[in-house]
């Protein structure tokens, strides 16, 4: 299936603080490197309700132990949530392989 827009979900402990700010800085960085995407944020405990929507899940490294996500989704571990450029580059790596139509912008 062609997909020219990827959906990125940011996940943190409560889904309002660090995931929200990360969403802001990363979307800015993604725009700069021409990746078209939609972004949302939520809490770990409510993450499963977004499985149908999300393509990539960006999640704090503190929270990655013991979680499993559906096979078709891709997970990115985040250490510095304010490092928009680095997280955007991580997203780009995944996008180039799985969602090439979303890279480059049109």
């Amino acid at each position, binding site marked *: 299936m062609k997909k020219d827009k990827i959906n990125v979900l940011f996940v943190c402990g409560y889904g309002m603080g660090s995931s929200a*700010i990360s969403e802001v800085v990363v979307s800015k960085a993604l725009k700069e490197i021409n990746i078209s995407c939609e972004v949302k944020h939520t809490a770990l405990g409510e993450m499963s309700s977004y499985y149908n929507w999300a393509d990539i899940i960006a999640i704090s*490294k503190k929270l990655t132990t013991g979680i499993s996500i559906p096979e078709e989704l891709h997970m990115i571990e985040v250490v*510095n*949530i*304010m490092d928009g450029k680095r997280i955007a580059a991580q997203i780009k790596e995944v996008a180039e392989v799985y969602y090439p139509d979303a890279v480059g912008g049109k």
Partner: protein
Amino acid sequence: MGVLSAILDAIYNLLMAPVVMMGLLVCIGYILGKKPPVKVITGTISTMVGIQMVIFGGNQFSNTFKPITTAVSEAFGITGYIMDPYAMRSTTTEALGDLFGLVGYVYLIAFLVNIVLVYFGKYTKAKGVLLTGNSGVAHSQAILWLVVAYLGLGSTASMIIAGILVGLYWAYSTTLAVNVCDKVTDGGGFTIGHNQQIGLWFFSKFAGKFGDPKKSDAENLNLPGWLSIFNNNVASVAILMTLFMGLYMAPLGISGIEEIGGENWILYLITLGIEFSMDMVILLTGVRMMCGELVGAFKGIQEKIVPNAVPAIDVAALLPFSPNAATLGFVFTTLGTVLAIGILYLIGSPIMVLPGFIPLFFTGGAVGVVANKYGGIKSIVICCIILAFIQTFGTVWAISLMKYPSGVGWSGMFDWATVIPGVTEILKLIGNLIH
């Protein structure tokens, strides 16, 4: 004339209703931000639904908790309060009543004060700008309530004073935490603007005295995997509330618990935990809808006016830099809090506190990360037990000052158990002087 004044009266009442008042503020924000009309309408309505949900969730929290505290208080003369920022949100939403509509304005004044202080940072030494919208709203409503309760001034004056106080707290508490955040994140470029940033600074001053971080780094440990259950907010609130409510109600005995619950005590305690977790999810969803676009908007303003400011964000940002230390911090803060509660029982304190999840995880975890960076594992243990005692006893102090005894509780976070009750004592003094 009668009809006209009735209409004017109705309009006035409508405008003063908290939901409409805050909705209008957001609507104006969108219009000023030149958003398309569809966005203005959908965004404003979403915010209003969010506010209504926060009010509803707060009441729901009260309804779950109140029958229990009443029973325990009638039997033993001890009143229980929850120490958690969401309990404080619920208490102050209820206490403010119609004045709740002013909270948005307090927030704006506070943000303005924060930005101005950082703009003139050369003279004021302020560096941090608070971007954590969800916490910012909670701060604004709590301080507004304390100002109203102690100074007894009109709504405009209360709003301005509260805004200035909150803005000062944001500018200076976040600036205090700049160095410790830099050290923990190896120059990550942010500071913490949440509820415990003064605490992070405080612990960084002596956490290095208890050990060598190079020899006993918590990140070299292999922690048992089941601890990751507590990463899940929905599950951990349910588990912890079942446990702590069980402990709190234990003096009533099994028959006493079954009398309140009307069913088997084990089943009742489990249901109670699940109910608390549901209340929390309602509140979270409401706050998310209410603050959804706040972060982006304020980040934009900060970048335009004070591009060199240090963004002050949610404390969760520190935890991935040292996941093991955060988990250990949570564990030892929880143990320390149980000890501190035991002491409250022993000395016969008329106020009993029940820790929510947030003070244990988000202050305990962050202090764990800081302590590990400066002094290793032993430092985590010592600092977190000290933290637990400060937060527990400090929250009892803060609750004695919250001027709304029927509220469900107060924030148990470090700053709100130390500096804020200190400021409240000053407000109380001034209030006594001017009345």
